[in-house]
């Protein structure tokens, strides 16, 4: 089942990529191939790869029919919701990164994440989150000269 979805996605992606390739304006300059030829090859290559996958799916289905094994259908379970929540939380972190600044957004992100995934150790979580955010900010900006978003923090 999963492989069939990958097959459809691959074909769609190849189609979009080939379409986008055709939109690249070409100016006849220097090299005989221009900027389009290589992407065209890649688009066609991806279609061929999709064909290879289709062959594998068909062969796999034949083998499965022989052993009478049934693939389990995808079921939405709790841990999938957890993954989505982590992605949403990390997206919020990225969103806040420049707006609140590195120190605040990182401290908040770490507090929330450790609260859920390292339960029952409040003191440890709060200390790690705050200390990591402050110390890493100071080390990277002051010692290593790496630029990190300051945000609404005055230093």
């Amino acid at each position, binding site marked *: 089942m999963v492989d069939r979805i990958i097959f459809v996605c691959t074909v769609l992606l190849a189609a979009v*990529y080939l379409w986008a390739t055709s939109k690249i304006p070409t100016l006849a300059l220097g090299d005989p191939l221009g900027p389009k030829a290589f992407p065209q090859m890649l688009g066609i290559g*991806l279609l061929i790869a999709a064909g290879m996958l289709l062959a*594998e799916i068909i062969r796999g289905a034949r083998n499965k029919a022989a052993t009478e094994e049934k693939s389990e259908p995808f079921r939405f379970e709790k841990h999938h919701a957890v993954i989505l929540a982590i992605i949403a939380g990390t997206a919020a972190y990225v969103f806040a990164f420049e707006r609140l600044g590195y120190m605040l957004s990182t401290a908040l992100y770490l507090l929330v994440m450790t609260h859920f995934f390292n339960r029952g150790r409040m003191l440890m979580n709060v200390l790690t989150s705050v200390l990591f955010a402050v110390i890493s900010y100071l080390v990277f900006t002051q010692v290593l000269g790496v630029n990190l978003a300051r945000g609404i923090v005055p230093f």
Partner: protein
Amino acid sequence: MDTFTHILNGFVVAMEPMNLWYTFLGVLMGTIIGVLPGIGPSAGIALLIPITYGMNPTSALIMMAGIYYGAKYGGSTTAILIRTPGEAASVMTSIDGYEMAKNGRAGAALAVSAIGSFIAGTIGVIGLTLFALPLTSMALKFGPAEYFTLMLFAMTAVSTLTGDSPAKGVIATILGLMIATIGIDLQSGQARFTMGVPEFLDGVGFVVVVVGLFAMAEVLRGLEDIFRGSSAQAMKITGKLWLTKEEWKRSIGPIWRGGIIGFVIGVLPGAGGTIASIMSYTTEKRLSKHPEEFGKGAIEGVAGPESANNSDTAGALVPLLTLGIPGGGATAVLLGAFIMYGVQPGPLLFQNKPDLVWGLINSMYIGNVMLVILNLPLIGLFVRLLYIPQGILYPLIVAISAIGAYAINGSTVDLWLILGFGVIGYVFDKTGIPVAPLVLSLVLGGMMEQSFRQAMTISSGDLKIFYGSTITVVLLAMSVISVLLPFIIPMLRKLGSKGDES
């Protein structure tokens, strides 16, 4: 004679206090990265690139190489004490290593992997020293057509040898090449596939792709495991950190054989450390007088694979340094690091910057000595890392990744890309699409297109140039074989089993 002076000079460079310090930092970080689950050598090196920007290239590259080979030492500790490989190539070690730990021989298992890694790692570096120059003299004859076919071979080998499905490997490879086409085309100045995002004009940086695919995706997997309650606990080290005479006798053969197998596999593109350690394991099982002990704590099953995956790293540096073409995911990241420092590996590097190349190679002899000290007498320190709660570790990895990515351009676009590629990496892992081929082809993509177009310009548009010389024909043939191999092997097996029946 000239070469010999260069090699000796390399030792002078490697022994400079500054470079000794960076060798130490590199192997120390490598050990830590290897021990900790969640961040591997590829992501570790990629994260260091923006932070070390502006450093002396020799020192920076010595440090990054240290992370690369040092991680293999650390990976075995996790494999033995928790049964999850801290680093992908330690997967074979986790079988017999963990069984030994359960039998109260954790100390011996850790000792044999550190000693084996040291001996085999040194065998690997000696091999690298010996084979580097003959290959560079061959590589000097390479034109764009030869380079194009060489890259094609590296990619086909990686895409069909990693993972179970060759088709998915090829899909990953082409996706990487497609990502590489995003940005301004250097030959015509034409912007391609930027989707209106100005940051994409410079292309999608490989650092964010690597950090996303390797670190962020691993965070998602790790946190999912914590939620499902399936993350494992570390065993205590039991027994002395040394071998009995009997164990030593049983290990020395596997260490030598593993070292040689690992180096050879490392030089070839595609296979890499995991396959090297599997090959060593099966070899030892076949040679053993008591194969039934394998899987139940046979010391040969730790000594061989652990040695193989260490000499593999030195082997993998051979094509990277001499030809400028990596044969796998981690060396592709190293190539990216070289390029960021304005250093182009390849035959000319040995002529133009012998100090850098030989300084780097010879620092590996010293690094291996440092590693055996870190991983034997000081192993207790690193084992403590395993007691850091993973619920804290994974969120910290996200924050560290954010620092590294933001440091590149000071733009949140790179942070979104990390998250996006993290999700892609997670989905790829669940659906069986390998990520190593994508990283390799992303790093090589620009060079591949360039050499293709240069070759076509030379031949004024005639494809004949790609099968015009012996080298290109051989490389093309090897590419075709590596694509067909996964289809031919099952067929041969079928034929073989039919032959047995009749």
